[in-house]
């Protein structure tokens, strides 16, 4: 039969970002897929030659909008490893909280986009409506909705007050309730299942051989997650990855859906166990005044309203220990990064890896970023042959492609 080459992307209604696939199709079946990347390359790694190591924190945050906090976290952990900085425990917990909030909003965004990919627009809106609550938490605690800019080398810039912690927990109760309401639709609906079950199957062996990461790998039955390595406060909180075994689009959406609920629990756990104390150490050349500016606690009206909520936190749960005045600068660390480090962090999309090299100068010698989508493109190309043309958008979206991450 005659073969046709069909371009898919870089501009396509289901694609949030420019990925170009050349689909070799026979009738309605995809035979081969060839990717083309490079539409949004910005050269952020090269900027390490003209921006000093502290300014790079803000730059790596902008590699990816959706997981900005985790990029900065990974970079800061690498630098702290090189410079031998011990981050205060409170800062580690705060990083965990904001990291998990990022995972929640990213997964909710993806679940919405995924619903949109198979034409379920009202579900898309429902998920994004829930996501707004997470965005509100981030705006109230960090000062921005997406690019939160809370991480600095040696700690975090903002702190959470007892009031804010309580407000976050009240919001989490509502978020959990609203997410659970959508369970039946995204996981048990006949039409949704028809579009996702058995589509784009990635077997356990193939996933491992092609180096899939994140929900792709966990959806294919591997219990692997960078959070198990215990970065930030995960060594104290403890963590168990969510695993599904079918390896199809349905399994991957289930993994992400369950991870959203798991993140809610992790944020709760982190808030409950967060110790009091300093939020950052003073690194020479970093922000001289590292004192975080605790903020008043969101819109007063909103706080008042949710305090009367029937799902409010019961009084017998021990309040987070926040007695000590926060925002102390504990130790002063001097010097410039000299050495190299590799750090791994679990992004919403999978495992993120940073390689950092400093030569004792103000500027880093090398910042290498390997993002999860880069690792997930080979498995995507293995999933596409044999599928129907109508399923291509769903399969492409099931890897949660972040092309601007990949091209940096």
């Amino acid at each position, binding site marked *: 039969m005659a073969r046709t080459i069909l371009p898919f992307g870089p501009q396509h209604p289901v694609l949030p970002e420019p990925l170009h696939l050349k689909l070799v199709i026979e009738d309605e079946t995809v035979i081969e897929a060839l990717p083309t990347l490079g539409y949004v390359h910005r050269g952020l790694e090269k900027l390490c030659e003209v921006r000093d190591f502290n*300014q790079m924190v803000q730059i790596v945050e902008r590699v990816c909008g959706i997981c900005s906090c985790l990029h900065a976290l990974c970079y800061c952990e690498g630098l702290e490893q090189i410079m031998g900085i011990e981050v205060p425990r409170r800062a580690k917990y705060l990083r965990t909280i904001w990291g998990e909030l990022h995972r929640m909003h990213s997964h909710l965004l993806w679940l919405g986009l995924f619903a949109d990919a198979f034409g379920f627009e009202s579900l898309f809106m429902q998920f994004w409506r829930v996501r707004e609550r997470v965005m509100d938490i981030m705006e109230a605690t960090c000062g921005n909705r997406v690019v939160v800019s809370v991480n600095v080398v040696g700690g975090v810039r*903002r702190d959470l007050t007892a009031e804010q912690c309580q407000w976050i927990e009240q919001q989490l109760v509502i978020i959990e309730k609203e997410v659970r309401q959508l369970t039946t639709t995204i996981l048990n609906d006949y039409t949704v299942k028809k579009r996702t079950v058995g589509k784009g199957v990635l077997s356990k062996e193939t996933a491992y051989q092609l180096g899939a990461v994140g929900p792709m790998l966990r959806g294919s039955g591997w219990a692997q997650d960078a959070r198990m390595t215990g970065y930030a406060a995960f060594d104290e909180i403890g963590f168990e990855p969510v695993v599904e075994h079918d390896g199809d689009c349905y399994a991957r959406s289930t993994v992400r859906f369950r991870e959203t609920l798991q993140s809610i629990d992790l944020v709760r756990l982190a808030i409950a166990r967060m110790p009091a104390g300093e939020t950052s150490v003073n690194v020479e050349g970093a922000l001289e005044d590292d004192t975080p500016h605790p903020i008043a606690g969101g819109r007063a009206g909103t706080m008042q309203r949710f305090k009367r909520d029937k799902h409010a936190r019961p009084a017998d749960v021990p309040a987070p220990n926040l007695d000590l005045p926060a925002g102390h600068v504990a130790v002063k660390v001097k010097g410039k990064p000299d050495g190299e480090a590799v750090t791994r962090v679990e992004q919403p999309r999978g495992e993120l890896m940073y390689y950092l090299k400093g030569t004792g100068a103000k500027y880093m010698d090398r910042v290498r970023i390997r993002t999860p989508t880069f690792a997930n493109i080979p498995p995507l190309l293995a999933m596409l042959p044999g599928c129907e043309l109508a399923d291509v958008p769903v399969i492409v979206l099931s890897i949660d492609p972040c092309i601007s991450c990949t091209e940096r």
Partner: protein
Amino acid sequence: MFNMTKNVVSNLLHKSSTRLYPFAVRGHFEGFRGTLINNVDECIFCRTCMLKCPSQCITVDNKAGTWACEAMSCVYCGVCVDVCPTSCLSMTKEHRPVATERQTDFHQGSPKKKTKKVEE
């Protein structure tokens, strides 16, 4: 079917989940990094913000006593506010209004004069 009916009834009884946008505007939370402002009377033109800015949008001339911020290049990270020694930089919680032209936030102040020690 029963689920659906339940949802329909609850949606009818609840108020709308969206805002009537132009009439009801969602405000920002306290501490939101909206617009960078400089209280130039307190500014000592020390150039710390210029050196720390990751997007290099601030230009300070300490001899002429000028402070300029390219509003379109600013990424609103708030680093300058944190490092400012006199706390003359601050951020308001409102966004900058929509602009059709490139804007520069320019301030002219009086540079700090070096005080000569009076010899006894």
